[in-house]
């Protein structure tokens, strides 16, 4: 169980920043940039949530299996695949949340910051981001919870190799399959504990955010 926990935590440690960067970034693009095919892109990024994880996992498996590079690099059925397996189905949640978050930021505040001589990236860091923070964090919490709990995709592309790709949810699955309910409950509790701890963390960050004025 400890090994599974550690792997789950390692997956989270990589996926949370990835979710924040990728999900936040794509959400920002969708909210703020007007490019051709934006609506199409916005639909496509939501596909992973429609497909059941096992189906998604299957397609992903075949897709990655076709690509020589991934095959050679031993990407599949190894830790990187576990990272990817947890990331993919949770990304749409983060993308949508960050899109809503950025769309909700009052442009005039950004403009005000620009006229005060701040460069665009400073404006982003010091105005846009803090104002979007609340919704961004909600999205991050939800999507990392989803990543933590992922089962189907990970099982398919990373396998269920103890000590290498067996995350907590996969461990629980194994325990249930062998009808070791006691251990399964323990592991589930642990999982929920980790989940709640990370939600609490996010919540603390969130409560610092101040309400916006009218």
């Amino acid at each position, binding site marked *: 169980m400890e090994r599974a926990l550690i792997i789950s935590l390692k997956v989270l440690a990589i996926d949370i920043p990835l979710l924040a960067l990728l999900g936040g970034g794509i959400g920002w693009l969708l909210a703020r940039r007007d490019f051709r095919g934006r609506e199409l892109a916005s639909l496509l990024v939501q596909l992973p949530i429609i497909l059941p994880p096992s189906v998604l996992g299957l397609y992903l498996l075949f897709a990655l299996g076709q690509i020589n590079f991934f095959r050679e690099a031993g990407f599949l059925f190894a830790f990187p695949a576990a990272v990817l397996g947890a990331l993919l189905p949770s990304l749409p949640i983060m993308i949508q949340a960050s899109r809503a978050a950025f769309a909700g930021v009052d442009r005039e505040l950004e*403009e005000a910051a620009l006229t005060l001589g701040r460069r665009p990236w400073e404006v982003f860091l010091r105005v846009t981001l803090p104002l979007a923070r609340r919704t961004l964090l909600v999205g991050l919490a939800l999507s990392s919870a989803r990543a933590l709990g992922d089962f189907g995709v990970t099982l398919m592309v990373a396998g269920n190799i103890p000590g290498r790709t067996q995350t907590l949810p996969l461990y629980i699955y194994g325990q249930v399959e062998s009808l070791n309910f006691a251990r399964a409950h323990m592991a589930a509790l642990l999982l929920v504990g980790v989940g709640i701890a990370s939600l609490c963390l996010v919540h603390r960050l969130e409560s610092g955010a101040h309400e916006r*004025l009218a």
Partner: protein
Amino acid sequence: MNALLDAHINELIGDFHLDVSLRLGREIGVLFGPSGSGKSITLRCLAGLRNVRFGLIALSGRVLLDSDAGICEPPHRRKMGLLFQNLALFPHLTALENVLFGCESTGKRRAKSIAREWLARVRLESLENRYPSQLSGGQRQRVALARALANEPEMLMLDEPFSALDGPLRRNLRRELRKLHTETGVPILYVTHQVEDICALGDKVFFIEKGKLTGSNRISDLIRGRGRVDLWKMMGWGNVFQGDVRFCNEGFPSFHWASGDLALKDVSGPGPAIAFVRPDRVRFLDPRMPVDSELSRNTFSGKVEEVLLDGGVLRLHVRTPRGHWQIEQRETGSHSEVFRQGDEVHFAIPPGAIELIFLEEMKGEENLGSSIVEVRA
């Protein structure tokens, strides 16, 4: 004096067409015009927050925008501070942090003392840790003002900076603004609806109506009465009518306009003209007394629409069949009557009180269009 700001803007917003040219030296310019005339949008265009269709903007020799040459500096490099009409305070920052945001580049410690100083100048020293949502309307406006001023831009644009403030505070802040201007010499352009602000603060006023510049004038000229009198009207003061001067069959001159006519005295010639009557030159009549013969053709009767008491001056707005008239009276005199809304009043315009501007004389005081060319060179 060479213009520090030289701007020509031509832009379309929905069906609103903005076409404005401004030149401003080390001065305070006032942008004055009715609601919806395009003042705020002009400032946004200058600040670079709106892409302008055609335009040319230069500030202290730097070309910020030249739509022909494809030059367009982004807002954060224009160094033009803007106080937004709806303030745009950062809701997640305290009053102090809001002000700091604009002046941090000078080092943490120093910035903080500058920000504190500005908060004190706008009389908010005790509220520096409040968030905007915890401040009153006027307090918010002052935070926004402090933020814009502390930023020390190369040009400052203020969109109705005092609209939510009371008289004494306004006076104080106008003084602070003047002081800042004397110290730094940056051009300031500010938007206001208050005639008071124009006189107290401005060096130059730009009149704008329906997206077009309709005039510009030095304020000292206005105060010395040397401005075009129709500008007074734009500022909401005085009685102005457009019509023409005729000589009647008896040879007496008179002024005819849409809703009536007035007898004149000693006129140079006939022709289209503007007649201007100062409200304090209007004379009240006692209906029981005979009217002076000189005044007989110029008597009016009407209903008082509004009575204003402005310090020691009583100001009446009277609607008559021959137009709408402003009348002013010192309310000190023992004979001063008390007027109420709805009262019937009788008054006369002494022919000598009618100032005439013949329309041929009215050739643009400042040639606005040509200023553009110089910058290009």
